[in-house]
Each structure stands twice: as C-alpha cells, then as structure tokens.
C-alpha cells in the first residue's frame, strides 16, 4: 500500500541553524501539508500546498518557514533559523482530489514524522 515517507526520522540542530525536512507524498496525490506536534500538545496545521504554491497557511507559518516541491516527488519544509520552540514532531501529509456526489473530499494520509530537537 502506498505511504507517505519522511526523512530524517530524527534531527538535532543548534539554535539559529537552518533545517530542511523532507517528505515523499503518495505518488498520485496533488495536495500536500505540513503539521507539527509539540510534545504533549495537539497536532497543529502549518501549511498546505497545491499546484506549486501555498494554498493556505496558519499563524505559526511565519517568514522563517518555507516549503518547496523541488522535483516531482519530494516536498520539503525549511526552517531558516531554528528556535528552541521549534522543537516538535513534524508530520507531512498528502491527499488526492476526489469528488463524491459533486463535492470535494480529501482524506489526508500522514507520514511517520520527523522529530526535530533544537538545542
């Protein structure tokens, strides 16, 4: 069964450093997402991406974050200058564009996550 993959599984970095988290969405999916989960808290939406541009972003997704689809398979999240509070599990998700009864419906499938630790 196709699945979303993410690399690395763990990333440790120093505060102020740049990190790039990588995701390979399910191959026929058209919508891509990043979420994060700070330890002990709920999963929070960061950004969604469609047709090579951001379609929606949350307040968390400020100027230090960026996303890119550099080729036909990868989807990346870059954090330019990491802060201690960026420590979290980052999940990538993808969905296909389906219609049921004339109504759009997207089920998002999640990757296993990248645990980012900022020291």
């Amino acid at each position, binding site marked *: 069964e196709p699945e979303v993959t993410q690399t690395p599984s763990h990333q440790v970095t120093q505060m102020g450093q740049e990190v790039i988290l990588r995701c390979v969405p399910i191959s026929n999916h058209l919508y891509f997402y990043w979420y994060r989960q700070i330890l002990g808290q709920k999963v929070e939406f960061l950004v969604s991406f469609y047709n090579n541009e951001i379609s929606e972003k949350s307040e968390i997704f400020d100027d230090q974050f960026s996303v890119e689809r550099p080729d036909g398979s990868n989807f990346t999240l870059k954090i330019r200058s990491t802060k201690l509070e960026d420590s979290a599990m980052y999940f990538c998700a993808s969905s296909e564009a389906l219609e049921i009864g004339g109504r759009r419906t*997207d*089920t998002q499938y999640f990757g296993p*996550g990248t645990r980012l630790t900022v020291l």
Partner: protein
Amino acid sequence: AQSVTQLDSQVPVFEEAPVELRCNYSSSVSVYLFWYVQYPNQGLQLLLKYLSGSTLVKGINGFEAEFNKSQTSFHLRKPSVHISDTAEYFCAVSSFSGNTPLVFGKGTRLSVIA
C-alpha cells in the same frame, strides 16, 4: 472556524471491555470527521472517516464511530479492546470545501490493562 473537543485526556480500560472515546466539534459549516490513531513512537494512521451517507462508520481494527449532527458529536467505540489498542487517539474535522486543514482535538490516551 472549527474546533474539536475530546472530553477525556486519558481512558484506562481492561482488556476485552468496551470503550467509548468522546469527540465533540463546533463549526459554522458542514464538516468531514476523522479519527486518527498514533501508536507509541509512530505517525498518525487513519482509523475511520465520515464524509456522507450512513452516520455509523466502521473503521480498521474493529473500531466504529457514529456521527450525530444534532449533538455535534463523533464518538469512537469498540466493543472489546485488546492490549494492542493502547495508543493516542485524535479526532479531527475539516470543512466541506475539500483540501482544508484538519483541525485536531487534544487527543485521548487509551490504556488497555491486562
């Protein structure tokens, strides 16, 4: 804007007993509803979803959930739990417009006791 409330942060239950994990949502628009499960040190796995049609939805691993529009609830149930069901369970909603972000509840930790 949508929000999700999972009323119980932790639910301990004995093996082979039934369990219900509660989820209530609020939204000004019609929504799709989801339950995801997160096993220790793993990612989020889709358990079941309600998009339309029958309000009783069956998912993987013997779980089911019932959509109740009047009570804005989507409670998850299983008639007989196993040790392997020990995990964090997240209820989530998204709006009818399609690829909108999922809004998650805070999660319920189900602990199955032998």
